[in-house]
């Protein structure tokens, strides 16, 4: 067992964990933060995307011990109560989600993209989100959602 101290969604967490525990399992199993999803076992689908120290990362591909001393934001930490972040609201506005399973990872990836490229072109959006697979939307409305969130268009 190894002790880690990590700030998750603004709360400091101190835990004794197995060194082979994945971050996504810490979130889902130990902390009941089930908004972060698991869609594959090869770090390809991006459903588990969270932010570590402000950068998008696939939580299935990070050991929990690696986030010792870091701050982690999950989809549950993106906005409070009935509020939605600009990106979350834009996804709703543009119908950028259907079954909702890839959505938390997609929103986290889009939020990261916009923090680095505030006014992305369509090509930059498509390249920026290619680490996240959506099987429902064909990406058309996801691209539109990111354009709305970046203030470049309305519906």
């Amino acid at each position: 067992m190894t002790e880690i101290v990590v700030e998750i969604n603004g709360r400091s967490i101190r835990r004794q964990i197995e060194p082979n525990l994945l971050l996504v399992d810490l979130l889902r199993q130990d902390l009941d933060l089930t908004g972060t999803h698991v869609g594959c076992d090869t770090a390809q689908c991006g459903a588990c995307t969270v932010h570590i120290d402000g950068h998008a990362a696939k939580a299935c591909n990070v050991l929990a011990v690696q986030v010792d001393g870091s701050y982690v934001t999950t989809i549950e930490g993106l906005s409070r109560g009935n509020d939605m972040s600009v990106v979350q609201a834009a996804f709703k506005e543009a119908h950028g989600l259907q079954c909702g399973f890839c959505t938390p990872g997609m929103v986290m990836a889009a939020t990261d993209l916009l923090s680095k490229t505030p006014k992305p072109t369509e090509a930059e959006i498509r390249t920026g989100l290619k680490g996240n697979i959506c099987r429902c939307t064909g990406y058309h409305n996801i691209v539109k959602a990111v354009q709305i969130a970046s203030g470049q268009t309305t519906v």
Partner: protein
Amino acid sequence: MTSTNAIGEAVKRREDFRFLKGLGRYTDDINIPRQTYCYFLRSSVAHAQIGRIDVSQALVAPGVVAVFTQADIDASGPVGGLPCGWQVTGKDGAVMKEPKHPILAAGKVRHVGDPIVAVIAETLAEARNAAELIDVELAELAAVVDMKKAIAGGGQTVHAEAPDNLCYDWELGDKAAVDAAFASAAHVTKLDLVNNRLIANAIEPRVAIGHYELANGDYTLYTTSQNPHVIRLLMGAFVLQIPEHKLRVYAPDVGGGFGSKIFHYAEEAFVTWASKQILRPVKWTADRSESFITDAHGRDHVTHVEMAFDKNANIIALKCETLANMGAYLSTFAPSVPTWLHGTLLAGQYRTPAIHCNVKAVFTNTVPVDAYRGAGRPEATFILERTLSKAARELGLDQIEIRRRNFIKNDQFPYQTPVAVVYDTGDYAASMDKAIELADVSGFPARKAASKAKGKLRGLGVASYIEACGIAPSSLVGSLGARAGLFEAATVRVNPTGSVTVLTGSHSHGQGHETTFAQVVAEKLGIPMESVEIVHGDTNRVPFGLGTYGSRSLAVGGTAIVNALDKVIEKGRKIAAFLLEAAEADIEFKDGSFQVKGTDKKKAFGEISLAAYVPHKYPLETLEPGLEETAFYDPKNFTFPAGTYICEVEIDPRTGEVVIASFVAADDFGNIVNPMIVEGQVHGGLAQGIGQALLEHAVYDDNGQLKSGSYMDYTMPRADDLPSFTVATTVTACTHNPLGVKGCGEAGAIGSPPAVINAICDALSEYGVDHIDMPATPARIWAAIRAAK
């Protein structure tokens, strides 16, 4: 958002808040106290005799609760195999071969992924670790992979019950009429087509949690299903023999289905059975590698087609021979896909007077194949639309003109096709015209010239599809071999203060029913959408249901809701007549109020509901209190959405790389309740169809190993693989349901593969390339260009 007249409005989805906040409740998010975890030891070879199974070390491994094989299941009492829900009768009345499909492998393993032993432990890691201690003797047999070799005779058989691996040999249509037409043909176009094997790949992997409660003998199965009542029926009645009143099947938020979550899977039956053995809940969650080798695959047809024309390029006959892969066992609806969901669509949008199709279904040592978005209809459309575009080129005709010339005309509806079905309505020229306009077809030569100046090839591809949704009526599908009805049920429960709870047998796993259905209810009752709750996915709450697949939810499930609403309004009129001291015939329901015609005397909907539940002043002698009605709706016919898609591609001849320059979809879905949701459905279908045409392929090697068994190998369409789409609709209302709706869930996946391949073949025509198989990868295109040179 508070509009009460909401049909036709792009209302934002009410389910989005929970999904966007990470508050969706998917099956894997559910954990039950004292839950155990199940891990399946699966076959790593495609075909083998199972010898001795030694589980002794696993049984004493840390955390292990139990280890089971099929022998344990057999010893526990009467347990059936996984049932098939459709029995196809072939030529000369020969009934299909239906080999037993045990929950865990018995005697032989028949595909990579076939489960052999189940280990249940306190944690998933402990179950996995213990499985590594199990010793299974497997005497490997030659794998049956290639369909033509499989039925050639003299090789291995997958099942002793099916000699030469033939499940059925089925035909539809008038062979003599077709032969006569071919004898008189001015031109015949021939093609050999492969409809590539695909994997649905819903991003949520399958999950099942079985929970038996000794206290009352009740079972609960939590599962990722598109149709929980169907699972309850199949698993309860046929496999585990649990009566419906003791079995609850609950499918909460489900992360996409696309067909793959229709079927009853072994893992569902196993965890339910095992929970009773160990008296603890048992949870199984597939990892993606497991999904690839256990979720039913889709498509996998090999077809030879011939189309005969008269001297004016009118189609006079069509014949096709298809081999359809069933995989190692018959999945729930597998036999219906290449037959009644495929052969019946071979008229397409055209007046072809004579059609004959023959389908041989083949067992192989591969994962079972069943319905995947479109299910049979994409295969039929690909046959017709590829053949027509090839014929146009051979005849020196424009690919649009050859279609127009053969379209069923508007005054010919209802139209009886030579392949059993009757189209109720359509306007095929209208969707064609709309697509041509949006695709700027007249500007194509200039764009082609511009591409050429850059050293690129440009092609334009057209495909006009028809699909059949809301498969029905039950009496017909029963005569065709279905072992279930295909109606839908709904209950409208008006609560005392006027809010409405709707219990629907349809299931939403991305389709947005909580919004669309609420729009219908709000409009019919004249109440705000906020007063309407849609409940689905739970056999303990919803009276009955057949679920969501085949683009049936609004046309069938929505109609059941409308019919229940009509009953509610009818009872409301009786109550209002009593309260308003008027004749029932004089009461009309308008804008949310019951009023006496020609007067200002009226009662609001909420006043009527309150009177129904607080019946102090109420016609109790003639009317029961309460306001709740149920309807079961069995459609009179399928619905027939149709449309035309136009794809434009640009190809780099040096690399074979294809870029989709534009994609236009013009669809006729009948009336539309929520255009935003409909567009989203089309986008998703297009992505899957373009994925089939350019990227996706489930490939087996000669030993029956799935070579494309992960997202590293199976090419899922990503954001940078696809363009933005141009979608539009034209409308002819369905004639036989009250909403006039047809269904939109599958169209995109049906019409787009031939549109893409036709565009590629158009671009490559200058090299004399007249066909390219899907997926049209850069390697294949480059090789085709090289071969032509």
